[in-house]
């Protein structure tokens, strides 16, 4: 059987298709409260240095597992204020609203103790608003929570609705999506266009017509050009034109809020993209990024495939980097030279640190580096050295002292960390500095190997 015949036979073996509802089943089985941690810029953590395994030829990588970021805040609004809730949504608080929030990973917990707040929540079951009368749980939606002031003058409310409003301390209105409101007495699920009152003394209940009339009248009064308070008589005295004017005013306010929400959502999206781009890039780095990485105790290293027992190959990256055949040849020669140089330097340092020349001859640069890292002086672990290099790069620490004062471990780490720059300099001689820079920048760093060393040295 030839290779082609075997490939044809393999192609005849068809596989199962997933059932239509498989994705929904998986998502519904995912734990709702599981954190989705990402790297907070200033969170203290143990120094975890993970060297790219098998950095010979592939895009090797390193990973540090981070605790979930926490963003907390509080607002006592004296004017309409928009708040971006760390990617979980947007709150538009009216004057007089008081809220505190805590966003941790995918979970947003908000405590709204007073006032009127419009929310646009990212789809999640972990977006919760606590009120004095109960809890509002959100499943991707636009909604409003109004915590009614129990001491407010009944003049703010209209006729028979006043009693209902005072009895119901919180009013929840849903514009899009679905919201569950609940307290110790029960729970109610609301869809678009529905509203409910939350009362600490009883189960949530749909807002009845009276409450709705009260709510609209209250809003009409608040939005009226002549002043906030509108009593029943004043409302009854309004002619059709005046009522239409109020409707237009309310609609205009809603449109304004919708535009504001879209703008904030756009900002959030841009922030996501920028964060992702910076997260994925190793080169070039702006001074601000170098500072940000250093302050996050993060050292990023991109390098050619020089850590294996043999030099790596340009391989498939010739295509992704858009290399001519001549450039492939030049770059492969540079890789071979860089590999030989790295092996020689690390072997010398290993011998200096251990006296074991025989052992050094049989170890790959990767193994030599790992051994040297493990032999760091007690008072100066690899984390401290890496952090210092990151700070030097950012201009936050002075340049290193003389090599003679550095331990073999520090020199090995510095040799490793500068491998990307050394390779760029090597290529600049053969291809010119601009081409060398462009090749390294094309994919955000040399494409063969990336490592991120993360963690703060005070916990090394």
């Amino acid at each position, binding site marked *: *059987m030839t290779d082609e015949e*075997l*490939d044809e*036979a*393999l192609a*005849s*073996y*068809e*596989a*199962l*298709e*997933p*059932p239509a509802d*498989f*994705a*929904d*089943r*998986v*998502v519904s*089985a*995912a734990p709702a409260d*599981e954190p*989705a941690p*990402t*790297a907070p810029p200033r969170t203290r953590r143990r120094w975890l240095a993970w060297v790219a*395994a098998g950095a*010979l*030829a*592939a*895009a090797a*990588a*390193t*990973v*540090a*597992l*981070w605790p979930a970021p926490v963003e907390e805040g509080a607002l006592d609004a004296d004017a309409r204020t928009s708040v971006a809730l760390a*990617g979980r949504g947007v709150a538009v608080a009216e004057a007089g609203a008081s809220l505190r929030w805590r966003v941790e*990973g*995918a*979970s947003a917990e908000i405590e709204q103790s007073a006032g009127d707040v419009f929310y646009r929540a*990212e*789809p*999640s*079951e*972990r977006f919760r608003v606590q009120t004095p009368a109960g809890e509002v749980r959100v499943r*991707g939606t636009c909604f409003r929570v109004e915590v009614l002031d129990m001491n407010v003058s009944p003049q703010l409310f209209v006729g028979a609705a006043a009693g209902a409003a005072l009895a119901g301390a919180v009013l929840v209105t849903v514009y899009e999506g679905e919201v569950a409101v609940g307290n110790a007495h029960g729970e109610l699920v609301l869809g678009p266009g529905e509203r409910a009152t939350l009362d600490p003394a009883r189960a949530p209940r749909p807002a009845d017509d009276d409450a709705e009339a009260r709510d609209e009248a209250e809003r009409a009064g608040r939005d009226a050009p002549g002043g906030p308070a509108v009593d029943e008589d004043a409302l009854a005295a309004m002619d059709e034109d005046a009522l239409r004017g109020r409707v237009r005013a309310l609609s205009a306010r809603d449109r304004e809020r919708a535009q504001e929400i879209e703008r904030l959502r756009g900002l959030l999206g841009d922030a*996501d*993209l*920028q*964060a*992702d*781009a910076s*997260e*994925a*890039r*190793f080169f070039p780095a702006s001074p601000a990024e170098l500072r940000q990485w250093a302050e996050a105790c993060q050292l990023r290293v991109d390098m050619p495939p020089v850590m294996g027992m043999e030099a790596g190959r340009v391989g*498939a990256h010739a295509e992704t980097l858009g290399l001519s055949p001549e450039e492939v040849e030049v770059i492969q020669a540079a890789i071979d030279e860089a590999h030989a140089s790295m092996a020689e330097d690390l072997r010398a340092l290993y011998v200096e640190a251990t006296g074991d020349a025989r052992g050094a001859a049989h170890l790959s640069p990767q193994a030599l580096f790992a051994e040297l890292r493990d032999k760091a002086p007690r008072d100066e672990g690899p984390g401290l050295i890496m952090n210092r290099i990151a700070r030097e790069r950012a201009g936050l620490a002075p340049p290193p002292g003389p090599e003679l004062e550095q331990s073999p471990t520090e020199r090995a780490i510095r040799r490793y960390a500068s491998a990307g720059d050394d390779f760029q300099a090597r290529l600049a001689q053969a291809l010119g500095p601009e081409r060398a820079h462009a090749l390294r920048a094309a*994919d955000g760093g040399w494409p063969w190997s*990336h490592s*991120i060393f993360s963690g703060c040295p005070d916990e090394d």
Partner: protein
Amino acid sequence: MAAPARGPDDELDELTLARARRGDPEAQRALVLRYQRPVFALLHRFGGTREGVEDLAQETFLRVFRELPGFRSQGRARLSTWILTVATRLAIDAKRRAEVRARHRPEPPEPVATPDRDVSRRRLGEAVSRAIAELPEPQRAALLLRAYHDRSYREIADALECDVGTAKSRVGRARQRLRELLKEEMG
């Protein structure tokens, strides 16, 4: 600033990935929809019944959700390769557990019902499925990743935690063994 191009065009876009990482159910759903077919194909060909494949596929994605935050820093590793790696390791573990319990040779996977397909092609496909089920697990995994998922030897080596030479050798030996088994069966 636009996000840099990351890997092949058919990978999940960066923004959806970031949202899935934060636990956004819609983004998680998009991720599953994007990668469910290769995961099912891998698990089925590795030797699973429909029920077993669905269970393992679900476990694969739940593990992916759980470990997705750590994937962010993995630079240019392809998301699809990482997910297939998770699926492969779960499949190997599941097979080993099942074999320890049952102490018998694994059954070949269920053939897919395709009544309108050419009969000889169907017979050939069934023969291939039986032959693949005969392969030792490391060879089977290497062959599947290479033949059906177009992974490089480096990616296979990373997935199976071996060196590139071993990955090549496993694929080569698997193909040779398949030739022998198919020759015996098909004559």
